[in-house]
């Protein structure tokens, strides 16, 4: 275990987690809206936004799947020390998954909930280079008219929306900012 493993967590966990959660909730309630989130400095390649989100929401009850380059010792140990979340190599067990869009594919492997309990589904934290309010056209609950967000895979996200009320929920993270796309959002090409 290296020194960096122990560092980079919330300085004041109750306050930092409350503020980070507010950013997560505002983003999920207003799909496409880009929110600032801070408080964490995780090891690369985990972004500060993804790190803060995982610190806020993950614990011993939430298996985490790390995809591709995110599945490295530094990240594993940091998450284990700061959240106690069990890491899983099996997508079907994941409550949260983090990685790039390409590394997280295929989406078919993650739990989408059951018809009776659609909440028993995974939340995917997708690391992207930038977040801008342009690109795919979003509409649905939480959006007054239309919103826009640069989504990595509109077709796959459209297919996810078609599963409603089942489906996956997404956070897109870049640096210290994040946006969300719940399963309820309709995605159209711009």
């Amino acid at each position, binding site marked *: 275990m290296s020194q960096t493993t122990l560092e980079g967590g919330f300085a004041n966990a109750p306050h930092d987690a*409350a*503020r980070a959660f507010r950013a997560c*909730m505002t983003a999920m309630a207003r799909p496409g809206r880009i929110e600032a989130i801070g408080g964490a400095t995780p090891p690369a390649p985990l972004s500060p936004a993804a790190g803060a989100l995982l610190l*806020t929401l993950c614990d011993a009850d939430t298996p985490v799947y790390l995809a591709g380059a995110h599945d490295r010792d530094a990240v594993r140990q940091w998450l284990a020390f700061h959240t106690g979340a069990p890491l899983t190599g099996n997508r079907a067990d994941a409550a949260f998954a983090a990685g790039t869009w390409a590394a997280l594919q295929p989406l078919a492997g993650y739990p989408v909930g059951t018809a009776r309990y*659609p909440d028993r589904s995974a939340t995917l934290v997708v690391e992207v280079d930038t977040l801008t309010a342009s690109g795919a056209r979003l509409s649905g609950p939480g*959006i*007054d008219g239309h919103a826009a967000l640069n989504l990595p895979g509109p077709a796959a996200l459209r297919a996810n929306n078609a599963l409603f009320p089942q489906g996956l*929920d997404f956070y897109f993270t870049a640096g210290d900012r994040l946006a969300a796309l*719940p399963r*309820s959002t309709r995605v159209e090409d711009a």
Partner: protein
Amino acid sequence: MTDYNFAYLDEQTKRMIRRAILKALAIPGYQVPFASREMPMPYGWGTGGVQLSAATLTPEDRLKVIDQGADDTTNAVSIRKFFEKTAQVATTTRTPEASVIQTRHRVPEAPLSADQILIYQVPIPEPLRFLEPSEVETRKMHELSEYGLMHVKLYEDIARHGHIATSYAYPVQVEGRYVMDPSPIPKFDNPKLSNCAAIQLFGAGREQRIYALPPHTSVVSLDFEDHPFEPSKADAACALCGDHDSYLDEVITDDAGTRMFVCSDTDHCTARRDAGHGTEDAA
């Protein structure tokens, strides 16, 4: 060092509630089960709403708590003091100044803004519960969107009374999918749920359910073409501020049956009287 963790609950409990809130927002109107905790107040006193508030509050928030529209009743005062003590958050009675509003059975008269969060205390979250006592069966009914029974209930109202007599906890359908209990708000408030700018969260502590409405969500009160939904209120004006359009409480003032109607939303009434409105407006 203070005696309580921020907002009373421990961090693991808040994470569990926060995860449930996010799933509730992702599936509007769907009831997410959560591991409701014992709170230092009895079930039925707003433990669901208190847990949502505890998981939602940040140190920068300004909290307002209302009980049937009033800021000054026991339940509202107790919960406001609870969070003043355990979260050291600022509080207010003014609706426009609040960032988080916990409510029992009313929606404030003042339109809510995008910066606000409205948290409802819910006694029975399952709208089908009095029609079908089994959770296994009601889960299946939600799964299949099988809501015919609810329409039968409303029809029986019409057959018996000539109109839909349900006047509070009037069932709504969210985005054409889940039928939801709006909590026991008067049906006068139902139209305010739809296309609301604020985030709306619903918490039932004893029944261990959380559900939510993201902003600008379509919420339709169930009705029939020939018996359309009608929000209703007492046909009077407020005896204190003269408002014709706010929801009114009937207050009996003596043993001879003398009564007066006053605004249920105390902040709305106070603000109007401060602005110079009075009984002469009622004429």
